[in-house]
């Protein structure tokens, strides 16, 4: 029996990393390890600010923040190990990943997330992505954006949506409400970075809407969780529109209190224009809190085209918040179950298995003659993978 294939994962961060991309990478690699489809998974992160050990079946090397050092280490690692699959966790790393895949005759998976993949990248990144066997996208929007600049057979672009951890569950949130002393106020919540360079999360849109919401008779308090260098601007905005006392900046919440924070809110609102997917929506809804977002980009996917949460235009936002606050809160258990049914760990694991199966098929499938027009066939080492994968 042939051994299972070995994977090298080039990622910005994974275990010990922060933010949505690190979380997604951990989820993906974890599901891959659980599937038992790879003999080894070696993860090379650029960053790992926190101490966190990967699962036993995954080996993670030391973080190498410098680009040159990272590239040298990646090439050296590739040189001395058998590698059948290269997983590239970010478009910026695709040229290096494509080079290693070519040198090793390995298959290449490139993962795309959000804003990094929406505009046309450099020709080198584009060429690297076009050489991939599979391109994974977290949402339909990101997939469409990649297709707008990449000459790739559309069937090679698969959507693997974000998933949500089992630790997020519904509850009454009274502990946090008491701790925050919000009393009987209606609580709006946003969880997301405040980045002055991007400013897409939409906290400013919520602040601007508060006077209208109060005018509709809602005694609201807006909790802004997250950190970033745009906080001062948002604070100034709250003062300017006369709602400073209704906006509370909480900083970056520790993970252990996040679930409680979601539970404490009456409405999770993140009118972002730049979500690749928006994992915070899933966390809120599996905590039992209804969610509201703009009908754009990856938010549509996270809210399941409006079936899980509410999707509105930017102009409708104030009215929509007021309307949702006036409605009784939906059954938290039902909302959490419906969210998990679409985006839970089981569904995610099934998606990852599909990715693996598709990767195996590239070997044995009969190619369209024009596939070679769109993407030159790589020949070195290609036939070994299907034979090696006995698991799926």
């Amino acid at each position: 029996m042939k051994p299972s294939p070995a994977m090298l994962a080039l990622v910005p961060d994974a275990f010990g990393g922060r933010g949505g991309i690190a979380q997604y990478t951990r989820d993906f690699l974890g599901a891959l390890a659980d599937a038992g489809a790879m003999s080894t998974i070696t993860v090379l992160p650029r960053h790992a600010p926190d101490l966190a050990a990967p699962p036993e079946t995954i080996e993670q090397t030391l973080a190498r923040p410098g680009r040159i050092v990272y590239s040298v280490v990646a090439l050296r690692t590739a040189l001395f190990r058998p590698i059948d699959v290269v997983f590239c966790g970010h478009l910026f790393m695709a040229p290096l990943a494509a080079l290693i895949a070519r040198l090793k005759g390995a298959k290449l998976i490139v993962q795309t997330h959000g804003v990094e993949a929406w505009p046309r990248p450099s020709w080198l990144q584009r060429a690297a992505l076009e050489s991939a066997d599979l391109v994974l996208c977290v949402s339909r929007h990101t997939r469409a954006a990649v297709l707008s600049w990449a000459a790739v057979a559309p069937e090679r672009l698969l959507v693997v949506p974000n998933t949500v951890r089992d630790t997020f569950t519904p509850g009454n949130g009274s502990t946090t409400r008491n701790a925050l002393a919000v009393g009987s106020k209606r609580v709006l919540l946003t969880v997301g970075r405040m980045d002055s360079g991007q400013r897409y999360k939409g906290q400013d849109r919520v602040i601007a809407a508060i006077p209208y919401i109060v005018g509709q008779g809602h005694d609201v308090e807006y909790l802004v969780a997250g950190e970033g260098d745009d906080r001062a601007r948002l604070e100034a905005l709250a003062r300017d529109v006369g709602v400073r006392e209704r906006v509370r900046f909480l900083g970056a919440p520790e993970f252990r209190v996040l679930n409680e924070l979601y539970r404490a809110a009456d409405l999770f609102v993140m009118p972002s224009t730049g979500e690749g997917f928006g994992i915070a929506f899933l966390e809120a809804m599996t905590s039992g809190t209804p969610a509201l977002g703009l009908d754009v980009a990856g938010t549509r996917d996270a809210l399941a085209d409006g079936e899980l949460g509410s999707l509105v235009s930017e102009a409708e936002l104030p009215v929509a918040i007021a309307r949702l606050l006036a409605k009784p809160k939906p059954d938290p258990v039902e909302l959490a179950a419906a969210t998990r049914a679409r985006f839970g760990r089981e569904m995610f694991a099934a998606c990852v298995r599909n990715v693996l199966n598709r990767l195996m098929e590239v070997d044995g499938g009969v190619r369209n003659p024009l596939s070679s027009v769109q993407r030159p066939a790589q020949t070195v080492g290609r036939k070994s993978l299907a034979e090696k994968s006995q698991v799926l």
Partner: protein
Amino acid sequence: MCGINGIVAYLSSSKAPEETELLVTRDAMRARGPDGFGAWWSMDRRCGLGHRRLSIIDLSDRASQPMTTEDGRFIVVFNGEIYNYPQLRAELETDGARFRTTSDTEALLHLYARHGADMVHRLRGMFAFAIWDEVRQGLFLARDPYGIKPLYTANDGWTFRFASQVKALLAGGHVSRDPEPAGVVGFHLFGSVPEPFTLYRDVRALPAGHTQWVDVAGPREPKPFANLAEVLAKGAAHPTSAAELPERVRAGMLNSVRAHLLADVEVGVFLSAGVDSGALLGLMRDAEQREIRAITLAFEEFRGTSEDEAPLAARVCEQYGAQHIVRHLGEQEFFDDLPAIFEAMDQPSIDGVNAWFVSKAAKEAGLKVAISGLGGDELLGGYPSSLDLPRWRRWFGPFAGVPGLGRLARKFIGAVAPGFSRTRPKALGLLEHAGSWPGAYLLRRALFLPQELPGLMDAEIAREGLRRLKPLRRLAASLTPDPRSDSARVCVLESAHYMRNQLLRDTDWAGMAHSLEIRVPLVDFTLLAALAPAIPALTPGEGKAALAKAPTSPLPNETVIRGKTGFGVPTGAWMNKVADEDLGPTAHTPENKGLISRRWSATVFSSATRANDQLEVRAS
């Protein structure tokens, strides 16, 4: 002929398809199937199939679609005809299959149940179909080797959709209208949109001669099952002598015509004064078709002139004892119908107007099915390309070996003689392109050449479109494996590009707009295989001469002498008038002067962009 569509919400995260979308898409194809309609949903409602029916074989309600196997496992929607259905049925019944209808659709279900995807190798006909497997929870799609029947797909990463028409997919309201630069560029290069591209990034044609599988892991890349070049290459490996050509043509054509007469309704014929349609009429008589009605399009402007096809067509009709229906067309009717023509045109094409009017005439005559001589020029070397391409290759081939020479010469002449460069762009491209088969073909068929595109549209769209389309590599890919003779290479290039992307597509939308099934016995994979050994020895004119003699009673000599006219219509002058209005002051610039196709293409493309402002890419 029918209209088919379907939706599969394959990713678990996606919401179930809406019934409204399925029905709106289906009913946007009402003209394709006025005789009936149906819809089917899987148990979990994650897959829906729709069908509009034009009843041709087994006119009863029991043959309605979507059609299900007795055990409920397989469900099919089908557009087209399976001409070897009687043989298949006999084989299947011998194998234990029990038929509930006399429809060819049911044969597809039995074949798929027994042979899976390999079933396509047993089919002779024109077809586009989808079969849902309730057990495997997957969808199997297939399209005939020549691409006679259309099939378009759209995949957004969550949900897979398909339909017989691009416009029907868009009508459903859930498919993006974002432009596809390769489609836009392809239209300006060739005068039609080359498959698999469409004008829309998210809509693709399932390529001719391909199958596709869709399940919970999403749609797979289409797999080829038939290749024109391969058939001709195999034929060339066992060539026959020129002396055998007439008998091969006669036997092959008669066999094809006989197969194409399978129907439970009357089958008529489009008749011009040319060889192809006349020979088909004669062969229909040889195939013992009793009552035959032949439709000829004639023009008031040509009455009493040598351009008038009606008198010669009448002679052919008289010879074969067919009832002749002559339909006269005038300029006013052309202008009156133009809005409807653009509405029915599924994707922009600089041709198709003639197909519209002859289909209209057939419908007025009460026909549901008509035989067309389309394909004879591609198969038997009837186009000027049969002479030009080999000649150009010989003359300019030596220059093709010098890298950059052609481009340098073009730029030099463009600098010293800009007027010549603008008015004779193809002459300017000879050194650059004519030395290779793909280049020579591009030059022969091009509406505009690649270097002209930045002047017609946003330069970035032109650049990106060419990068994605890769026109020369695409043309070269169709010649793989090498068909091994000049005549076979021209046959493949004309069949796999001009005929597939333009003539057959125009025939489909123009016929379907009048609820008319147009059958093309000269576009038949079995016939191609039968003639393949003879094609390498084919010299220009010889094939058509053999076709003229194929009927027991050969065509009159005048028909052969007159050569190809087809269903020529005096639309050139009419199109010029329309283009003058559309182009305004730019109508008579040197670039536009005298080039009717180029002028007309601007009108056609603007009609498509009027329907979608996201396609506003042509320079003002």
